[in-house]
């Protein structure tokens, strides 16, 4: 079992890191403060091939493995978690379900532009009454001749408003519960499809989080993704893979915060020593390093399962739980180590701490992840 990254991964990490440090890091603080969506950087990500890493060359993708994707999201998130989730949500939550469940026509029409980064994607599952419990889905889809008509709304949608392509879920038959849900592909600009509230968030403030509103949105039948009644399954599979992205984002946040703390501890002196010479701080740093290492291994393991097309659910859930809890612990400790300075905007750790929190919540809360893990370990 080889724990080292191969030459390609090393090169990819360097490329994304250089790009992240030179182009993404300098404006991250300002974008966070102004809640300014990183549109220019997103376009550059597309040009560098970061928008469709795991998709095969036949759909203009890079044809690389999940580890390459995880490394990319981690490196972006290390300097700007908002940009990290923008890329991750686009890739895992929109492009991926189309890739896994779409027809050839849908792939040609929607997947390719997403993979090249020409278009941006988003995923609309969550609703006011359907957070952890997807059976609360109230958005409806009704067949009408050669079309479906969608009514309802979605909240907390990452990349909302800016995305061109949306994979959303809607209830077609309430009596069937989750089995009545179907997934659809929508395009920005379709009549009746508008955007509502833009969320003001604690963290990842330059990531766009919007309400989607559907008022008699008429879509052609060809825009059904998969089959009627398959929507819940599509959502669950999508989230399984998406969790690898969020775990990578969390890992990146943790890594970034840890490096800030380490650097500060070596430079700052109190009581006649650098902080890094004080055992109290050494223990904190050791715990941070240890948890990050464990998170990294869990993420890499989940990537391995995904790349090998083996059951990924349990591993992705484990990676996400651990990485997100690690991100929160590490970022909080980083602020603690930087003390008063860490609490100010002069240093990035307060932003990292605010950014970390969401990783325990979206794409399945840590509580849900634990249920997923339990279900997996108890099933045989």
């Amino acid at each position, binding site marked *: 079992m080889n724990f080292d990254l191969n030459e390609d991964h*090393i*090169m*990819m990490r360097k*490329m994304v890191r250089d*790009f992240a440090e030179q182009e993404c890091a300098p404006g991250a603080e300002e974008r966070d403060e102004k809640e300014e969506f990183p549109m220019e950087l997103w376009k550059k990500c597309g040009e*560098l*091939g970061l928008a469709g*890493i795991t998709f095969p060359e036949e759909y203009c993708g890079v044809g690389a493995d999940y580890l*390459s994707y995880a490394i990319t999201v981690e490196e972006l998130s290390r300097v700007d978690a908002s940009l990290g989730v923008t890329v991750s949500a686009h890739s895992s939550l929109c492009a991926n379900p189309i890739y896994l469940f779409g027809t050839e026509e849908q792939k040609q029409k929607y997947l390719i532009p997403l993979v090249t980064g020409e278009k941006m994607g988003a995923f609309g599952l969550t609703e006011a009454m359907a957070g952890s419990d997807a059976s609360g889905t109230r958005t409806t889809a009704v067949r009408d001749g050669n079309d479906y008509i969608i009514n309802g709304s979605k909240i907390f949608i990452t990349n909302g408003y800016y995305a061109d392509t949306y994979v959303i879920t809607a209830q077609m038959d309430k009596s069937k519960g989750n089995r009545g849900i179907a997934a659809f592909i929508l395009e920005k600009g379709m009549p009746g499809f508008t955007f509502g509230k833009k969320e003001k968030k604690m963290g990842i403030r330059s990531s766009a989080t919007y309400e989607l509103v559907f008022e008699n949105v008429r879509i052609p039948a060809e825009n059904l993704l998969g089959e009627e009644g398959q929507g819940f399954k599509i959502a669950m599979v999508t989230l399984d893979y998406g969790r690898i992205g969020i775990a990578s984002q969390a890992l990146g946040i943790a890594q970034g915060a840890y490096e800030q703390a380490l650097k500060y501890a070596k430079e700052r002196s109190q009581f006649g020593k650098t902080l890094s010479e004080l055992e109290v701080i050494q223990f904190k740093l050791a715990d941070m390093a240890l948890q990050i290492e464990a998170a990294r291994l869990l993420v890499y393991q989940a990537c391995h399962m995904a790349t090998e097309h083996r059951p990924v659910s349990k591993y992705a859930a484990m990676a996400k739980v651990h990485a997100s809890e690690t991100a929160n612990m590490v970022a909080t400790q980083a602020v603690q180590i930087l003390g008063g300075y860490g609490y100010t905007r002069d240093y990035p750790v307060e932003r990292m701490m605010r950014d970390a929190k969401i990783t325990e919540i979206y794409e399945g809360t840590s509580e849900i992840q634990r249920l997923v893990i339990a279900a997996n370990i108890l099933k045989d």
Partner: protein
Amino acid sequence: MDIVVCLKQTFDTEAKIVLDSSGKIDSTGVNLVMNPYDEFAVEEALKLREKFGGQVTLVSMGGERVTESLRTALAMGCDEAILIQDPALESPDEWVTAEVLAKAVSQIPYDIILAGRIAVDDGSGQVAIRLADALKIPSVNCILKLETADGKAEVTREIDGGTELIEVSLPAVLTTQKGLNIPRYPSMMGIMKAKKKEIKRLTLADLGMSAADLPRKMSIMKFNLPSPRKGGMKISGEAADAAKELARILREEAKVI
């Protein structure tokens, strides 16, 4: 157009320099990178190929780790690489390097040869110009801008206090200065494709040369580390007083103004 880029792998400029037990520069654990000035050469080569078509061939010398930098350049878009490796070339001086590179380059077609103006490790800035003389072609050092047409290149070169516009007939060696272009990041696709591109390895024998042909013209007697500069005094007080005191010290004590 046949474009050749001479590439060197160097220590990262962040690297801490220590001497090993034999008094030589210790390279253990040091991060190795493409010489930053060579990145401008690679980028310019790729731009030329985008404009005129053709091929970009990298030429380098050194140990196995050089392949990392060559792969990066291949990932940026270069077509193929030649790596000259030989135990006799462990720490060549500039004359030896130029002679060997000249032999290798003379075996491939070239319309233009690009190289960084200086390597950040040895700080010599000699090899590329020497290469030109060995190949008996013109050289222009420190270019900030390049236009080519009809077998000639029009280059803007940096000189002390300004720039010069030079027209030079091709083939020629041009050394690249910061400001010439902005090197591209290798794309993901580029990284994946780089694996399939060839790195041809050549020994001195493959070039028809032997160690006896390459006597050192310079020798390094010893290395030393500078005594570290130490922080001096901080002048305290209100801005106006501090400024006054500094001016006084510079005039009366340090006697530098």
